[in-house]
């Protein structure tokens, strides 16, 4: 199946928002999604954007059952390693279920890698849940390093009341 992958534009935020909700519904976490289409438009398209996106489009004749031609996306942002320098972090990778198995997911990831290298990055980081053995095996077979399992890095988060309390302690 033919498809194209292009940098996300402001107009794509409607489809990206739709696909974020599709994935959340599938994972039964719809009530946890706080980000709206308007948030994406605001945060992804300002002078120093919080993220970048790439969107997959198929021709009209292959549009989805509901009539969508935008059928997948990857959302990423630039990060930094104080040891290695510029890096890119892939936050989301999603392909609508009826378009899977056609190489679209792999193409999206490759595109993010390509954008990262073009920006001078030497690392592409992302997270996978430890019970997701098929994904872990796939990525390890592609030459990935698991910095949690192999180097012992634990991923920590501070949010909500704890974050507010911490921020109040800043002078």
């Amino acid at each position: 199946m033919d498809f194209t992958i292009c940098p996300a534009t402001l107009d794509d935020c409607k489809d990206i928002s739709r696909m974020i909700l599709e994935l959340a519904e599938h994972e039964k976490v719809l009530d946890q999604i706080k980000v709206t289409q308007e948030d994406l438009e605001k945060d992804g398209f300002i002078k120093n954007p919080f993220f970048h996106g790439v969107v997959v489009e198929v021709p009209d004749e292959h549009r989805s059952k509901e009539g969508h031609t935008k059928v997948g996306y990857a959302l990423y942002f630039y990060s930094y390693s104080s040891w290695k320098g510029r890096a890119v972090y892939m936050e989301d990778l999603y392909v609508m279920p009826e378009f899977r198995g056609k190489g679209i997911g792999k193409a999206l990831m490759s595109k993010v890698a390509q954008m990262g290298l073009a920006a001078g990055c030497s690392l592409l980081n992302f997270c996978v849940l430890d019970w997701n053995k098929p994904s872990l095996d796939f990525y390890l077979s592609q030459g990935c390093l698991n910095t949690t399992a192999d180097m012992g890095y634990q991923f920590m988060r501070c949010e909500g009341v704890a974050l507010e309390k911490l921020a109040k302690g800043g002078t």
Partner: protein
Amino acid sequence: MNFKVRAARKEDCKDISRMIMELAVYEKMPEQVKISNEELERDGFSPNPFFQCLIAEVSDENMTTDGYTVVGYALYFYTYSTWEGRSVFMEDLYVMPDFRGKGIGKGLLAKVAQVGVEKQCVRLQFSVLEWNKPSLDFYIAKGAVDLTAKEGWHNLRFYGQALDQLAKEAPNN
């Protein structure tokens, strides 16, 4: 001991570079440090910087035996969660050994949180090595959650040849 936390300036990169190496030695991986202070200057002080940095500074009379007044730093950047929105990731937090136990680490961490909250970030995230019990205890006491232990998140990384190979497979449309 009095100290000041302020935004880093380009001329601080020499000190930041010095402390990055000190932190890598503490984490038992000094051979992994590949970047120079020139790269820090380029990447942290351009119109669209890859990172932000805060510095902890003491007055002259408290300078280190080697004559440094810059004794700690926190390096961070903004990230995004498609569930919750704007977030901040703290890549490094370091205080020179002689200056620990004086609230400087807490001051740096709190300032990163404050800057993030002012920018409407809803999460502050970072990584800690599993054997680094003093740091884990410090962060958990402040309300941080270990998502690797709690939810099973693992960080994966493409780099070197594997990254080059992956990028080569991107479609040309």
